[in-house]
């Protein structure tokens, strides 16, 4: 018996020597929390899918390191006439990863595919009335009204080869039962997918025929989903992966002291805010009022005064986030510099406003919050609950997983809720359209405006903002809307969520506020 134990012990001691790893410097591996659901660039419009596919597919335009758009498959573009649409001049000599040539046909095909009812990206093309091929390398996009931000809004629209899609019966995206394009990719981008095992690993290798200038030094890259944050952190610390996103906030300080690891921090595009039931007759979860205090702008301002955002950022976000006074972060196009700071932390002012609104003794209400959607969301909600209580507003906090949260919000089961918003177009018009416009199903307006906030002037300005070509005039209107939303306190903007990536210290990369991980900007030293 003892002999057996002894030999087992010997084997265990020898194992590491035999199994020494032979990793090569140019191989790069990274961990993500969410595996992309599909490799089809038109099937699912989420950051996990589009962010990953940006490495293998390309659009007519792409975003550079500062989020500005720059030429990709189109070399230049200009408005047609007085805003009838946009003309794109395509790059010549580009080939897809399967070797076929890129032409205007592929652009038209990808438009038809991405704008089809089966696609999840159709809303990008709602302003488009027609797409015309002018010649092999020129395409016109005609819009129903002048559309200054159209080139910006299609930065994540990726071009698929028409011949490849037809040969593999993937002319339309199919998210319910999947098709060839769900598991295979054929783009024009810097990397091609050489192996795809959903939920397990996806392997990318450089595409030799890429048209662009290579900045990276990667010969093979592997993406692995790791859901458990502690496991991901251990994988980074042990060198099994070269990069993780995100680093848990509580581990940031510890990682910064570790010479083997670098923490890259930035500001995400996502603004965290509080929302209210503007149209409700009465609160649903109050024990002491049968009115809806939140219908009064003074009560909403009182909420803003009662919350000590800097304290939340210091204790819960450990100084990794920035306060914000509007629905977009400063990195977004159309951010209002003219807008003054929002209500400062002032519990006395909050109580005075409540008294003015007819609630000198405060009131009770229900506060809904997700507990697995945003960084430390539940802890933030607990802090807010405590701060509101000091001003006389007694919230009963109900935190739940996000898969239960959205149905509750849609059903109107809240008196106040927490929401994070990341504008898909990286433009200040986006949250106005989705969060501030009066809900209108037919016009696809206000689809996330759960509380039904409605302001005639905002509704009037939105279409003008969407079609104004002149930058200054457009910004003036955006400033006006930002001012209205602040005066009305339609939402209480709290802070911009941070991005915290952890890498091995021999890796250099670029972090973009959209949280897309762009492999062609990575080098391993």
């Amino acid at each position, binding site marked *: *018996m*003892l002999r*057996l*134990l002894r030999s087992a012990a010997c084997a265990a001691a020898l*194992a*590491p020597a*035999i*199994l020494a790893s032979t990793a090569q410097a140019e191989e790069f591996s990274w961990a993500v929390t969410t595996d992309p*659901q*599909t490799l089809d660039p038109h*099937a*699912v*419009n*989420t950051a996990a899918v589009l962010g990953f596919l940006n490495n293998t597919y390309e659009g007519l335009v792409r975003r550079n390191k500062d989020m500005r758009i720059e030429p990709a498959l189109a070399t230049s573009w200009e408005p047609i006439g007085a805003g009838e649409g946009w003309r794109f001049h395509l790059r010549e000599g580009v080939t897809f990863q399967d070797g076929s040539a890129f032409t205007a046909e592929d652009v038209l095909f990808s438009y038809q595919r991405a704008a089809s009812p089966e696609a*999840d*990206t159709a*809303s*990008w093309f709602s302003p488009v009335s027609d797409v015309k091929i002018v010649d092999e390398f020129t395409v016109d996009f005609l819009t129903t009204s002048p559309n200054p931000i159209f080139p910006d809004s299609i930065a994540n629209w990726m071009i698929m080869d028409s011949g490849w899609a037809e040969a593999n019966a993937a002319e339309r995206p*199919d*998210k*319910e*039962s*999947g098709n060839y394009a*769900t*598991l295979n990719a054929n783009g024009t981008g810097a990397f091609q997918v050489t192996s795809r095992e*959903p*939920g*397990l690993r996806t392997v990318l290798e450089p595409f030799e025929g890429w048209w662009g200038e290579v900045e990276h030094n990667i010969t093979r890259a592997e993406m*692995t*989903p*790791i*859901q*458990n944050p*502690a*496991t*991901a952190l*251990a*994988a980074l*610390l*042990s*060198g*099994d992966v070269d990069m993780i996103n995100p680093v848990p906030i509580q581990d940031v300080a510890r990682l910064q002291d570790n010479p083997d690891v670098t923490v890259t921090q930035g500001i995400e595009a996502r603004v965290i805010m509080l929302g209210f039931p503007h149209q409700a007759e009465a609160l649903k979860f109050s024990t002491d009022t049968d009115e809806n205090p939140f219908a009064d702008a003074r009560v909403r301002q009182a909420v803003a005064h009662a919350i000590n955002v800097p304290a939340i950022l210091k204790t819960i976000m450990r100084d990794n986030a920035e306060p914000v006074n509007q629905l977009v972060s400063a990195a977004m196009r159309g951010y209002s510099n003219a807008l003054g700071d929002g209500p400062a932390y002032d519990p006395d002012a909050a109580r005075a406003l409540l008294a003015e609104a007819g609630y000198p003794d405060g009131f009770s209400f229900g506060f809904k919050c997700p507990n*697995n959607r945003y960084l430390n969301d539940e802890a933030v909600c607990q802090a807010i609950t405590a701060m509101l209580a000091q001003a006389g507003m007694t919230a009963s906090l109900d935190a739940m*997983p*996000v*898969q*239960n949260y*959205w*149905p509750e919000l*849609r059903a109107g089961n809240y008196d106040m809720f927490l929401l994070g918003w*990341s504008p*898909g177009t990286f433009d200040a018009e986006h949250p106005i359209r*989705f969060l501030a416009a009066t809900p209108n*199903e037919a016009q*696809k307006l206000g*689809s*996330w405006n759960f509380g039904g906030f409605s302001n005639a002037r905002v509704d009037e300005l939105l279409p003008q903002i969407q079609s104004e070509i002149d930058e200054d005039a457009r910004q003036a209107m955006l400033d006006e809307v930002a001012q209205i939303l602040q005066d009305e306190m339609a939402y209480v903007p709290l802070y911009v969520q941070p991005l915290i990536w952890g890498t091995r210290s021999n890796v250099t990369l670029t972090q973009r506020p959209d949280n897309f991980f762009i492999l062609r900007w990575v080098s391993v030293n």
Partner: protein
Amino acid sequence: MLAYIIRRMAQSALVLLIVGLVAFAMFHFVGDPIDNMLGQERTADDIERLRKQLGLDRPFVVQYFKFLENAVQGNFGMSYRQGRPVIDILLERAPATLELAAVSGILAIVFGIALGVFTAIKRKGFAANAIMSVSLIGVSLPTFLIGILLIYLFSVELGWLPSFGRGNVVDLGGWSTGFLTTSGLKALILPSITLGLYQMTLIMRLVRSEMLEVLRQDYIRFARARGLRDRNVHFRHALKNTMVPVITVIGLQLGSIIAFAIITETVFQWPGVGLLFINAIQFVDIPVMAAYLMLISVMFVGINLIVDILYFFIDPRLRVDRTGGH
């Protein structure tokens, strides 16, 4: 006898149906899959259309019968998350879980019996007492904590073993195995220890107490009196007679090793069916959850059925009772 078996099988089928019904009733509380399937720019119409298309607008009982109807024909539906047939995904993930369970089971049995015998024979020795004390850890520490501790010790601090995953696997006609590569074998070590530790301590303590019991018996004393060597007494006479209850327990634990691999798989990002199930819960991937729960309940019901039938053959008293009385 045939009547007994038929009755047990009918009971098993009933249990399966009820498990399925309870599972479907609970899916409602897991959340709504629609938001995960549509992007930010969805409209209320999109939500309703998809809900109808997936049949989620109907009561859970109707959804359940639809599932049963398809399952009987071997169709477990499409995963909401991956857009692929659930059965393909389960078959793809099963080898990882089965290999992990097999290695953990073997570790638990081999070390459990060996240490159990050792602690029984050297009951008063220092080593035996130390092993007994340490075994308390295996019983009392939660699996995920053991897993994280092992990762920090052997991957982060010592750098000997991989911190997650299955390493490189070799595909043998639909069965992916990690047994044939060094990285695959290395990757097996920590998860299988984590998963097997509880079963190992269980077997060890059981073997020890059974063995102590047997060593007190007269025939052991006679064997010693006959001048047999200790080794013969311990292994030929004592151990053999302790094995009957041990084998029963091992059989019953086999199912739980597979079912409770969920936590170990999550900690080690082990790409088996348990991790698939956890991901399915987060995504509210109802077809995957339903198929997994049915699979696990079929397994447990199957094991119990086999045990029942075996008892029937082993124990004649049962036979008389069942055919006569009930």
